[in-house]
């Protein structure tokens, strides 16, 4: 008792709070202490417990929004309360309400984690965040009266600010548990990602193996939200090869060579309404081709190093660079339409989204569309992503103009008079992926330097000196494999 009095006295000194009784203080200290001890008394052991715990626990994501809403309201009330005293009076009530709902949410959250057997770094972080938050709300409640009386002006605002930071962090942890770690950043523009997240490809060691290229990405997309670093359901983690093979509480999930005995494959192929079906909780089932790949990989030994699998052919539809949005040309529409009616060539929108750009189409006026006409479109160059100049009268001189079409992705020059002289003026077009030179006089030597253009994936040279049109075989020769 002596000790408690000492603590209480020192707290009193720090926070002279005339209205607070020692009993209130003592209760708060006891409550904080038991909150801090709770995780050590009842350990999250990764085993699911009683159903009623889970049932109640699943209200946690719902109830948790009550304290969040109330806590965000408190600083607003305090600030506006400077002008409207009635609101400041309300702040006390809101804060108290927030504390009660905090305790409710904390209880439910603990029931959820304990009941469903969730473990993992994300769960632990979120739990400690919730406990810290509850204690700091309690502190706010205790500190507020002396702040109102003007005895202590800094402690309460500082605690409040700290509480809000804890709230933000805890809520983010919770969100990551529910939606997955990359939920916020998945659709972040690439440029911003590079800036905020640093090297994007840091986590792909041995990227050439079948596991790294295909299996890992399937697991990442479908499983790791519950079986990863953040949340470890059933003691199983699938975010690396070693962890995957180690399995969960009930043993390994993959039996190399035997997909039919591997719990992983058995459970993803159950009927979706089966109790054991994975992915659980109504998440979308794996796609058939994903199951095919998993099955083949397990069947053929679940090797971490194999680069290809027998009988599995994956068309590596080469990843196209993400479309870079062009600016909005909407304001130039009247000018564009004037140009079209005067010129005959058209600028058709790629889609209803202006940022997808325009396609320069010349098919109606191809014969009379030459370098001069092309130059007239320079004004709209930043918005043009595709130039259809096939069968037009453009010549090598147009490469100068085209080099200024900075957003060009596809360039059609088939059956034109270009010979490849000056072709490399296109080198600065970093987004050019498609170049059609079919039916021109380009030579192998003229197109060889194109290799240096990294983004250029589709180059067509049919019926040119570089790639003469070859006669098809007159008798079909099936490229048959032996029948298996």
């Amino acid at each position: 008792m002596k000790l408690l009095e000492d603590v209480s006295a020192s707290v009193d000194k720090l926070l002279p709070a005339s209205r607070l009784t020692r009993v209130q203080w003592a209760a708060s200290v006891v409550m904080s202490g038991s909150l801090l001890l709770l995780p050590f008394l009842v350990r999250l052991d990764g085993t699911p417990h009683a159903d009623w715990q889970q049932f109640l626990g699943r209200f946690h994501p719902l109830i948790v929004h009550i304290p969040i809403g109330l806590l965000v309201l408190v600083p607003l009330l305090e600030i506006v309360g400077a002008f409207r005293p009635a609101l400041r009076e309300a702040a006390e009530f809101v804060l108290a309400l927030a504390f009660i709902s905090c305790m409710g949410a904390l209880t439910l959250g603990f029931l959820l984690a304990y009941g469903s057997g969730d473990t993992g770094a994300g769960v632990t972080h979120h739990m400690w965040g919730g406990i810290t938050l509850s204690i700091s709300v309690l502190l706010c409640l205790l500190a507020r009266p002396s702040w109102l009386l003007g005895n202590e002006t800094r402690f309460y605002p500082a605690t409040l600010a700290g509480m809000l930071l804890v709230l933000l962090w805890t809520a983010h942890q919770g969100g990551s548990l529910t939606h997955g770690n990359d939920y916020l950043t998945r659709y972040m523009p690439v440029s911003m990602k590079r800036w905020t997240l640093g090297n994007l490809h840091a986590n792909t060691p041995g990227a050439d193996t079948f596991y790294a290229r295909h299996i890992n990405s399937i697991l990442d997309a479908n499983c790791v939200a519950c079986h990863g670093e953040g949340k470890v359901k059933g003691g199983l983690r699938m975010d690396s090869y070693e962890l995957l093979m180690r399995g969960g509480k009930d043993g390994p999930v993959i039996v190399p060579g035997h997909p039919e005995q591997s719990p992983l494959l058995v459970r993803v192929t159950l009927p979706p309404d089966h109790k054991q079906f994975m992915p659980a909780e109504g998440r979308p089932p794996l796609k058939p081709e994903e199951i095919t790949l998993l099955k083949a990989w397990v069947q053929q030994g679940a090797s971490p190093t194999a680069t290809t699998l027998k009988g599995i052919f994956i068309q590596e539809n080469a990843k196209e660079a993400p479309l870079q949005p062009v600016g909005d040309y909407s304001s130039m529409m009247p000018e564009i339409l004037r140009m079209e009616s005067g010129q005959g060539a058209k600028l058709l929108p790629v889609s209803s989204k202006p940022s997808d750009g325009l396609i320069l189409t010349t098919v109606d006026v191809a014969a009379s569309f030459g370098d001069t006409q092309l130059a007239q479109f320079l004004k709209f160059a930043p918005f043009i992503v595709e130039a259809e100049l096939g069968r037009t009268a453009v010549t090598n001189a147009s490469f100068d103009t085209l080099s200024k079409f900075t957003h060009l992705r596809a360039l059609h020059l088939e059956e034109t008079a270009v010979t490849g002289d000056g072709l490399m003026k296109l080198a600065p077009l970093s987004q050019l992926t498609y170049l059609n030179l079919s039916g021109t006089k380009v030579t192998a030597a003229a197109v060889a330097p194109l290799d240096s253009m990294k983004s250029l994936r589709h180059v067509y040279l049919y019926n040119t000196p570089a790639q003469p049109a070859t006669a098809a075989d007159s008798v079909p020769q099936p490229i048959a494999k032996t029948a298996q």
Partner: protein
Amino acid sequence: MKQHPLCTDTEQCLDVMDLAVPPELKREWAALQTRRHFLGRTGKVLGWAAMASLFGDRALRGDAHAPANGLPGMQAGEQLKLPHFAPKAKRAIYLFMSGGPSQVDLLDYKPNLAALYDKDIPDSVRGAQQLTGMTAGQARFPVAPSHWAFKRYGQTGTWISDLLPYTARMVDDLAIIKSTNTEAINHEPAIMLMNTGNMNAGKPCLGSWLAYGLGSMNDNLPTFMVLQSKLNTKENNQPVSSRLWSSGFLSSEYAGVGLRSAGDPVLYLTDPGGVDREVRRNMLNAVNEINRQTFEELGDPETHARIAQYEMAYRMQTSVPELADLSKEPQSTWDLYGPEAKEPGTFAYNCLMARRMAERGVRFTQVYKRGWDMHDNVTGILPVICQETDRGCYALVTDLKQRGLLDDTLVVWAGEFGRTVYSQGGLTKDNYGRDHHPRCYTTWMTGGGVRTGITYGETDDYSYNVVKDPVTVRDFNATILHCLGIDHNKLTYKFQGLDQKLTGPVPASVVPGLLA
């Protein structure tokens, strides 16, 4: 205020077009006026009035032409805010195999059937399926295994029948869909369903929706063209009619334009003797002026369609001869498509024309090949029709690919249904017949937006029921629209009080497994 042309009152009447009312109401008023104009112009004869009521729905239709919220001169697609998203394919070629190709003999390999020769297919497989009148009365449904061997081809190791040696060479470029299925069991409803999304005639077809939604890329040729292949009288040719490329309730300028398979591609396209281009132009100018006056007077949007079609025909006088002039095609073309491609109207010729149209900015080309309806003598006829079509399909895909057109052209190969695994009529070791089979049939797609080198969907051991990943006609069409940048739920047209769409009112979904 001005005197309305049809107003017989001496009083002046209000002109709705001048009033500050919402443009939709103006359009509705303009559409309503067409009925009034119909009655007025036909001398108020009772018989005509009766007929007018028959056409009442058409007169009440919505209006595609009144300037929408866009700027004058904008493309139809731009005004409709289409494509909804950046498309992978700008144009499409649809090879329609009318009659119902036999999936069991061509693309859906069932090795177990050989052992089941002449055994009845189990009731558990056949279920309570409705059969056609042609086989419903049969006492037995004996399994007729395919007469032809299958081999594996390409890196994908896809099983292809010996009947399709050319298709076999491009399997790695195809997405073969084994689980296509339809609700219709006879030709006309099934072919209508494939093309218009509805078994009953009167709805716009896929090509018309595309023409309406995406507009033209080219002023000198129609947006939507149809090529019919010459008939082979040995085959059982089911009728193919212009209902299949009709624009339904959309303006008739979105209907498919057919090229004839023999003689002049378009009849009466050449000017008659004594009429030169200038005379023709002057005549058209005069006619257009009269039509414009009619439109201003009555506001019937179909007037615009008529003006547009006159103008298109005028431009086609030069563009079609250029399109059909194959003299500049290099020898490599003939080596690829085969010598019969030189003969107008053959399937190979039409495939070559389809490539030439793709180059010239035609948005949608549909090639029809009739004769796949084999109720008997499969071993006699199937090799003939395969020989007629196999090389053309391969040549078209290969040609588009080598010329860099396959990147943004969608190619579709499909019939209206499949054929039964059981024999219709007598079954011998050498011959058998096959009836219509809607529950599963095989189609393929390739090109812009399609994930190639895959086989999608599975059928049971009898190629009778789909057991995995069914693709309904609605889903099939929704996927085609998706490749062209269209959300099938958003491309709608108000008609008879409904937001009509190609995929109809039953929910349809794009098949993600088919997309690149």
